[in-house]
């Protein structure tokens, strides 16, 4: 290796580079403007205009909206009912609807009371509660009392009816496999006919109302 400091002339005395002041080529500016225009067009088509809820391949909120599942319908009511059920009923009947023998709560799963043709006696039962013996799936339950859960739900009469309808829909759908929605109007009519009653129902009374 060459250890000697070799100071060549261009190393010690050198001029710094300069920049010529030639004009800018126009084609570059034209190209930039064209590309900018195309980019803006592209952004307009696919960019979703800064919407945080728009992800490719969707291009706008309206586009995302086109693929939203239909709300209304039984699925929504079932979802609502599921929440209300776990807040108000699951304490005794359990989330899975298997009941709780220790407290004298009969099961709901496949119960003939749940699978009745219309929801009339279920709405009555939920509204005013039940006392006395009741036979579920061939077994007699006699040690518990169901409170008037429906009456004690918060809200106006219309809201109560709507909530009871959701619970009934969910219970019948989930535990009775009956995919028929119980309408709030139907519940309101039933509740209007029993609105002055304060005592719990008994099983016989319910069977009389809807055999």
């Amino acid at each position, binding site marked *: *290796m060459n250890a000697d*400091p070799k100071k060549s002339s261009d190393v010690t005395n050198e001029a*710094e*580079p300069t*920049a*010529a002041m030639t004009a800018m080529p126009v084609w570059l500016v034209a*190209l930039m403007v064209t590309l900018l225009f195309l980019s803006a067009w592209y952004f307009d088509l696919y960019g979703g205009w800064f*919407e945080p809820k*728009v992800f490719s391949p969707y291009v706008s909120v309206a586009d995302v909206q086109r693929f939203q599942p239909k709300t209304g319908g039984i699925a929504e009511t079932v979802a609502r009912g599921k929440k209300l059920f776990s807040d108000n009923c699951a304490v005794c009947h359990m989330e899975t609807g298997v009941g709780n023998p220790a407290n004298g709560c009969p099961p709901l799963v496949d119960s003939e009371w749940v699978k009745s043709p219309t929801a009339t006696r279920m709405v009555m039962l939920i509204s005013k509660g039940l006392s006395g013996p009741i036979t579920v799936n061939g077994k007699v339950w006699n040690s518990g009392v169901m409170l008037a859960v429906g009456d004690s739900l918060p809200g106006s009469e219309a809201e109560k009816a709507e909530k009871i309808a959701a619970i009934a829909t969910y219970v019948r759908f989930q535990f009775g496999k009956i995919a028929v929605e119980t309408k709030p109007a139907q519940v309101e009519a039933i509740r209007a006919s029993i609105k002055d009653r304060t005592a719990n129902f008994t099983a016989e009374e319910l069977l009389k109302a809807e055999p």
Partner: protein
Amino acid sequence: MTATSPTTPSKIDSSCRLPLFTLFSGAAVWLVLSSVFGLAASMTFHKPDMFADCAMFSYGRAYPAWSHLLVYGFAIPSGLGVGLWLLARLGRVEVAKPLLIAVGAKLWHLGVMVGFVAIVNGQTSGYEWFELPRYAAMILFLSFMLMAIWVFVTYSRRTETALYPSQWFTLASLFWFPWIFSTATLLLQIFPVRGVVQSSVAWWFAGNLLNVWLTLSGLAATFYLLPKLTNRPLQSHYLALFVFWTVLIFGTWTGIPMHSPLPAWMSTLSSAAAVMMIVPMLALASIVFLTTIGAKTACGGGSLCFSKFGVLSFNLATLAAAIAACPAVARVTDFTWFTHGHTTLRLYGFFAMTMFAAIYHILPRVTGVEICPRRTKSHFWLALIGTLLLAVPMMIGGIKQGLKLADVSAPFLDSTKATMLGFRIGTLGEVLIAIGALIFLANVLLSILSHYRAIAKIAIADATAIQTAEVKL
């Protein structure tokens, strides 16, 4: 400006000596170490179980160690060193506080080492191109600020007031790094933001680091070296200005991949910006063409060769990134080795080559000792062939991989097999790059060493002269 006698280039060069020695020697060491980890990572694809019992070299740690050392270990210190020298030379001013800058450089290298040790021990942050843990990030930030302040003071004391394009690029790079790095450190590691905002910040950071910072710092050197070495004026001031503005305005929006869990507007904007980078790319091509055409300088494996190949790689990498940003192409190339291919081309082909060019130009001036042209020439060919063998097969392999991924009738493993040839050639490229890096390290260290040897010789000669004089007395 004080009315002291005008400073000379050699005085300026010697004022740069201490910081440049520290920055460049450290950078060269990290480059060698980084290529070792790059090689280890690449070996994993030939023999997956090679490092099954050795966590340090397992792919998930070797790869971040490679990228960390390459970017923070090699790229940033060498870019800073070159920028410092350019600002001093072009401003015709001696470096302010060279000792403090050297201390900052030492601190920087310490931070890089802390980050490296943390990464291979599994303290990776988990963000690509920002792998270092926060304690290392804080060291890096402080040391960068320490250096940048004195580099800026040097610039502000300049005696030559007319500004040359290289100065714009260097100054903008000094401003860019602290902003993006502090944002990333604060929002990813100190007060982490929620969910995909992290990804957005990390990608913004990576885009600004790779597509803006490296470009600014590299082009500062290119715009100095090309006219200087061909002995012609830069063609032209306005084109360089145009490159400057377009790189800043468009480059800063690149970085978010087409496929990401971010809202559509972000990736759309980012891919448009990547396509817009064609504009500065073409402007740069015309600058280089107009400046060097008809120049009689043969490059002979020296700085000019490195610099020209750097520009070529920049253009190829930018073009590849722009094409890969088009939605129809991105569908194939996203998630493949194609991205890695053109990023490697940018790092090794453009930035590292440009830095080699600048360092081989600067070091002899600072040390007063020529670097053996045979060694720079062999480094040039190794680096050139190595980079091409690494980047091009990766890009081709990436396209093949992407086509297999898009073809759902092909099992997933077919997409991995499609890249195997690329890896075989790529590993060869890594080997050449590693040997090249070793030669670079030897060149830098020998150059520094011979400077001190020359000084020692002069001192001995002086002492002998005094002794002889005394004997005569």
